[in-house]
């Protein structure tokens, strides 16, 4: 790994700070989903793949922060019942703020790219 790759990796880690949480909350904003479903959806979004070992601690943290809640247990024909997660009202409020901030940041990014002196 050359110097650029290392730098990009660190920069990506910084960018991913909070981004993964926003994506999970956005997925849950549309419907209630169980943990494995979330994992599959995230893996279908390029660049957002996350390991099972990391997803569940993240879900636990979001639940303790009061942003998501276990809505119910969904019976599985083979395995154990699955926890179905959903957004709490507070989670919806936080997600709205997050999305707004990302829109602002996108515009800021475009302004910075196409800078012309006023």
């Amino acid at each position, binding site marked *: 790994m050359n110097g650029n790759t290392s730098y990009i990796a660190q920069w990506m880690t910084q960018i*991913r700070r909070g981004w993964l949480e926003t994506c999970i909350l956005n997925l849950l904003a549309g419907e209630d989903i169980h943990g494995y479903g979330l994992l599959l959806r995230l893996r279908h979004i390029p660049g957002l793949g996350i390991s099972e070992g990391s997803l569940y*601690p993240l879900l636990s943290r979001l639940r303790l922060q009061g942003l998501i809640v276990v809505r119910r*247990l969904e019976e599985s024909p083979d395995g154990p019942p699955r926890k179905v997660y959903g957004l709490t009202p507070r989670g919806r409020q936080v997600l709205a703020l997050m999305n707004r901030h990302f829109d602002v940041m996108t515009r800021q990014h475009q302004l910075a790219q196409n800078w012309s002196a006023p």
Partner: protein
Amino acid sequence: MISWTPQALSLFERRCEERRNALWALGADPDEVFADWKALIDTHAADARASTVSADRVQTELEILLVDTPSALDPPATLPPAAPSTSAFRIWFGRSTTVMLWLLGVILPLGVILFEGLAGLCAEILFDPMPTWWHVLLITLVPIANAAALLTGSRAQTVDTAHPRLRWTGMANGLAIGISAFYALQFALVTPFAVLAIIYFGIGLIPLAPLFAFLCAVALRTRLRRARFLTDVPPPAAWWKTALPVFLLLLLLALPRLMVPVYTPQVNDTDPAVRARATTLLRTFGSRDLMLRRCYRPNVNMDFFSLLLSGSFRLGQTTSRTEAQTTYYRVTGTPYDAVPPPRLKGLRGQDLIDSDWLDPALGGERVSARIRNLTLAQSRLDGRVDTASGIAYLEWTLEFRNASKTQREARALIELPPGAVVSRVTLWINGEPCEAAFGGRSQTRRAYQQIAVRQRRDPVLVTTAGPDRVLLQCFPVPVDGAMKTRIGISVPLVVPDATQAEAALRLPIFVEQNFTAPADLHTTVWLESDQPAVGGAATPLQVSNSDPFSIRGKIPANAAGPAAFLRLPLAHPYPPIAARDSRLPDGLAILQTLDPPTAPPAFPETLAIVIDGSARMRDYRTHMTEHIFDLLPDDMRVCTFIARDETEVIEGKPPERLRFVGGCDNGPALARAAEWAVENGQAPILWLHAAQPLASLELEALRQLADFSRGTVVIHSHQYGPGANRIAEQLADLDIIRPLPVMGNDAADIIDHLQHKAAHWSRRQIASDERPAATAPGSTHIVRLWAADEIKRLSAPLRKTGHDDAVELARTFQLVTPVSGAVVLETAAQYQAHDLKPADPASTPGIVPEPATGLLLLLGTSLLLAWRRRTRT
């Protein structure tokens, strides 16, 4: 269902524990994440059609799972405190905690429940924590739930066995938290003392049991959560969703009991409005069982919630026994001693009421509660009726037997025939009859209390208890022994209708007693009469018409039902009678005449009716309406005062639908009726009431009115059913309460009395030579009855100097009156010590005609024959 091998489970837990701190630092719940991981492994096993998760599978899965944990995540802005690291100390601590949880959360509560159930210590001293079986059930659930949580929460068990139990254990744990929190709060007042007791004396765990059980239940909640995350059991409802309802349920169940100590002081408040409100509340919601228990143990149920509800944390505030007894009567309408005492057990399981309970009324002026194993063994009424003199003399012999373990005092409230007076009292000491000494009321009571209560010797005391009533007290009735006494009663015959040649005699009866008369025990009656008698409708007496006419039979010995009575012919018009007695000054005699009413019989123009609104009057509602109120003339001006918690005043006759509830103080209603009567032409007052077992709190207004109205306030009272009349006793010195002389048919007699149909005896002192020519000689009882009248006149409330003369007169003529009493003591020294002198047996009345009376009768008969012979010629 996927099962895990113990090795797999062990490996999984060990590896997870290694990540605990890292997950904790990330802000995640490690136990939750472990459970999710475990579920994931189960899912993968199911996908692979495996029924068992082995250690190898776990190893493989974890290598994938834990590869980047938690590197892909960012720590939160604020880190939670790091979880304690697993160490030898932590393992030791965990095991010690488990032992403590078993000890304090299971064994201690179970032991305390068992102890309290057997001994009832807390119920006796503070409050009853288990008043119903529902409470026992709920309390027992706490150690059971704690034990279940300990067993289920253990990591040692397999997933399969834990799975079905967790849901129910979680719910039971919530219930245990609610129940133990309730009881921990209830004991909160005792908790600091219990802690100090443990520190200084090493005892005091019992009151702390609820608190320990609560703390254990809370600690076990955490364990259950951890165990739940390791399995796939759905989470139980939040702890407060089960704890709060059961807490509120217990509070609701306790509310009737909590209200009792809160509102008892208010029922005894001086403000009538406060009294009325508190009485109504307790009547509607209060626990009657607790109110009854507090009559014997006044300060039970002093717990945290009671003090909280009363808005007062004054720990020293206590309720007196009298307040508790007053409350019970006001709320229920039944005196506390008219119902069986509650079960109160001591530490050794002994019955506190039966053996250890000291008689609080010993030597006092109240009959109070019935005492177990104190019985009436014999009751005999002998007498002689002398219609020629218009009198009767009755002797009632009573024998009490005591089968209890301690000496007892027998007490009875006796209703005398109308206008009668006790003129003889005898006590058998060592088989010998001993006559009473007559003295001042307080003098005789003082002697009785000193000899009986303090020295525990053999006296008997008779004092008046309101109009036409006496209180008989005998002490001590020895253990497994008997005590025999006799009272002699001089009785004027009643002439209910002056137009009829007929007199009536009502026999004495118990109206209240602290002993039991067996159902098969009757008072054996044997009276002799100079005229043939007719038994009353409800009187089971046989009348013999052979001369001398005798009246024999048996009447109930218990305080129940109306008194038996007889009707006898009387000379009409009745001739004047003169009577002599050696105790009268020389040359003086007593002339007795029968005076008809001063005006033709008629109803008064105005009438005040006072009706006792107490529950015990309920049975007499129809009787009063149909037989009394409906018979009153329509043009009579009537005002009705119904004694309730607050007096209800109705202009006119009482309504047909009267409501009777609780036990009401009749004093305020009487006072208002008296005020109305004075303002409306000195109208008579008719007071229809049940027993008044409590003194009235508001009689001062009535007393003042009676003092200043100079004898114009007259209350004609009629009591339905047995029992004491404390209000009449309170007003005895004013002589304004006049019990109606009813004979069997209450209603007809009351109506007749209101129309002034009765004739009245008049007795006055004359010089022997002033005696009218046709005067017949009469019984010495006429002189005793005159003395009783004279004593009443001398001791009238507005006379300030007559009291001593009245006492002296009572002593001379050996009478029990409002100013005097009779006491039998055991030795001459005891009499001397109290400045009393026993009556000379020769001067006491008897059933056989007294020598003086016999001579007078002989003389009278001779005079009458001589007079008839002379008129014929």
